[in-house]
């Protein structure tokens, strides 16, 4: 499998990282190098093997469905690049 410039553009957009058109050929080449390295995995017989999700077979912890933390609006907003009137502010999303 080999990544074209167009596919590199698509991956960059999916990852929400701006990449200039001029940089796409180099990006495609790098990604191809890495994917080629991963293709060694095709040598392994994985028939009947379940994909591993965690190292310890354990049931995720559960707890009572109650509020354990909260009422910290100021702290939550403290690191925001733009916070106004108790909200995170972003550029206009809907026309």
């Amino acid at each position: 499998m080999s990544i074209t410039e167009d596919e590199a553009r698509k991956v960059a957009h999916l990852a929400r990282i701006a990449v200039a058109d001029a940089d796409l050929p180099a990006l495609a080449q790098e990604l191809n190098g890495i994917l080629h390295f991963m293709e060694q995995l095709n040598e392994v017989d994985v028939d009947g093997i379940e994909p591993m999700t965690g190292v310890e077979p354990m049931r995720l912890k559960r707890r009572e469905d109650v509020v354990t933390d909260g009422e910290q609006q100021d702290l939550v907003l403290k690191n925001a690049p733009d916070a106004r009137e108790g909200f995170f502010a972003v550029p206009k999303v809907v026309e």
Partner: protein
Amino acid sequence: MSDLNKLTIAGARDALAKGEITAVELTETCLGAIDASGALNAFVHNTPEMARDMAKAADARIKAGDAAPMTGIPVGVKDLFCVKGVPSQSASRILEGFLPQYESTVTQNLWDQGAVMLGKLNQDEFGMGSSTENSVYGATVNPWKLGDGVERTAGGSSGGSAAAVAADLCLGATATDTGGSIRQPAAFTGTVGLRPTYGRVSRWGVIAYASSLDQAGPITKTVRDAAIMLGAMASVDAKDSTSAERPVPDYEAALTGDIRGKKIGIPKEYRIDGLSDEIDGLWSKAADMLRDAGAEIVDISLPHAKYALPAYYVIAPAEASSNLARYDGVRYGRRAKLGAGDGVVEMYERTRAEGFGPEVQRRVMVGTYVLSAGFYDAYYNRARRVRALIKRDFDQAYASGVDAILAPTTPSSAFGLGTADKSNPVEMYLNDVFTVTLNLAGLPGISVPVGLDKQGLPLGMQLIGRPWDEGGLLNLAQSLETAAEFTAKPTRWW
């Protein structure tokens, strides 16, 4: 007493208990050493006021007879641990200006014991790297410098932690290990690095890279210090859903010095092509040391070991692409300057292009690709199946009665800064060839310095333990440490 910064944690603890030194004196000596260490670029945010306040409180606690093992011990903290009110940016530009409003469990546990916070330590951005060159703060320089004057890497991603301990800027340091980031820097700097079993140490407040692989542990000067510091860092934590419900044992008590009858496996697959005679020779020597101490050395096979590296470089970027989706310029960190008419998508794309360094961008995009529709099965699910086979190899080795596995930590000693081929990222990935297998299997591992290479640079050997048997692993590591008699220190040039 001069040179207090050169003490071990155990030595300082005993001297503090006897009243021979105070935590304030010890802390001042470390702060002085840090001030004079700019050339190493190990400490990147210093917290001297916090350190002095904590040292005073520690002295009061010792006086009151209420000391814990880490009370009054000055430590450095890898940048990616959130410390309330202290810059914590995982060496990334995207977290510029971020001041955590809460404390990571690991650092809280250390402060509860009375440890002293000296500052934040350099690393590769989000833990992605093997040389601490991928950092918004610039590269860390290894304190080990030879006559050739070459500046070498202190390893990565926890290069700042390893350099700081090797240069006696602090008595111990916190670090994290996703693919070898504790053990490889320890090997490159002549220090001890312990990665615990996955789930032993809480990940709460540790800025994530790959959540199924990340685990925090200590870098210290000795194995005994690693036992003391792990005991302070580890806990059962309701805030981390993968924290194991197992009480933390007394690791120092496990250091009996008796390893008679222990079975040590030598994995034949680790004898890779191109392994230097020097490292191969040291490996045999380390096996002899353990045999002389009463252990039995047996050959074992981990047939899927060679697939660990490619599996890791699918799984870790996949998890990273999900974890790092949170850096969107909205909730914390740095937002790119926007032009008139720019919308929210431009904000995301430009913020992430400016905020992430090249290696982080690369891994996020690789991760995005392997998780995207049409490739999820071919790459991500296949890698997870291979991961299951890698873990099964270890399970079978341990089921056959092996107590631990011995292997080199790294394929070479520390390499020069700036020598990696930037057009071929895979070359740097090969550094992790011996370390990454145990991350995939969730196992504990420790790197112990055992000798110097021909050039005079430190080399480490790695012991891989059974799950949850950090005590047994530390005991074996201490036997190796005792037999190796590694006492070399870098000559001060900084």
